[in-house]
């Protein structure tokens, strides 16, 4: 999958493209992990993501937990209505910051 990374100081923006499903999500997680080193804020930009299945939710939860561990923050932006519905359904709107 294509993922664009942007760093601005200690803020990392990750912009994956396509679907965050059972195949692409582990790949996204593996690419994201090393990029997060030394970052205090991680922004996941879902503008170019069609949908997120439980595989994608797993990666987002892992990033959220890691950022909490290092007293950093994570937020998810540009969430389409289909993805928002899934976040709401599984109670993730209380877990992540979604803008």
């Amino acid at each position, binding site marked *: 999958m294509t993922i664009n990374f942007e760093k601005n100081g200690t803020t990392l923006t990750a912009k994956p493209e396509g*679907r965050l*499903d*059972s*195949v692409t999500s582990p790949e996204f997680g593996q690419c994201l992990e090393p990029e997060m080193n030394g970052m205090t804020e991680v922004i996941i930009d879902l503008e170019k993501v*069609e*949908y*997120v*299945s*439980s*595989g994608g*939710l*797993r990666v987002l*939860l892992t990033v*959220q*937990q890691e950022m*909490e561990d290092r007293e950093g923050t994570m937020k998810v932006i540009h969430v389409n*209505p*289909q993805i928002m*519905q*899934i976040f709401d*359904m*599984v*109670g993730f709107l*209380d*877990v*992540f910051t979604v803008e």
Partner: protein
Amino acid sequence: MKEITVPAAPDSVETVTAFVNEQLDAIRCPLPVRTQVDIAVDEVFSNIVRYAYGPEKGTATVRADVTDEPLSMTITFIDRGKPYNPLTTAAPDTTLPARQRRIGGLGVFILKNTMDDIAYEYRDGMNILTIRKMF
């Protein structure tokens, strides 16, 4: 009725999704519904790969049927792996804070909350899982 048989391997989900989308697009399925079906396909198929076959290799057959009045799509997943009923998975607690959250069971939870009917049976050595979505 149309069907496709693919290796029960993680990457096959792309082929299965493309097959299902082709059927959905043919009947002008609205995008929000199509997205829910695509997610359901991913949840079911990844479970077959992970639990029914585990390290073993095998195939999975996916059938798509369109029914009129009400317009709906029924998708049947058939594999010859170990008996595995995903519908017995315990529901996750969706109210816990991030630290205590576990991802296990979320896929089936999404499935149950987005599909109109789900049925499982183990028959003649086959896991048969059927999902139905009305438009």
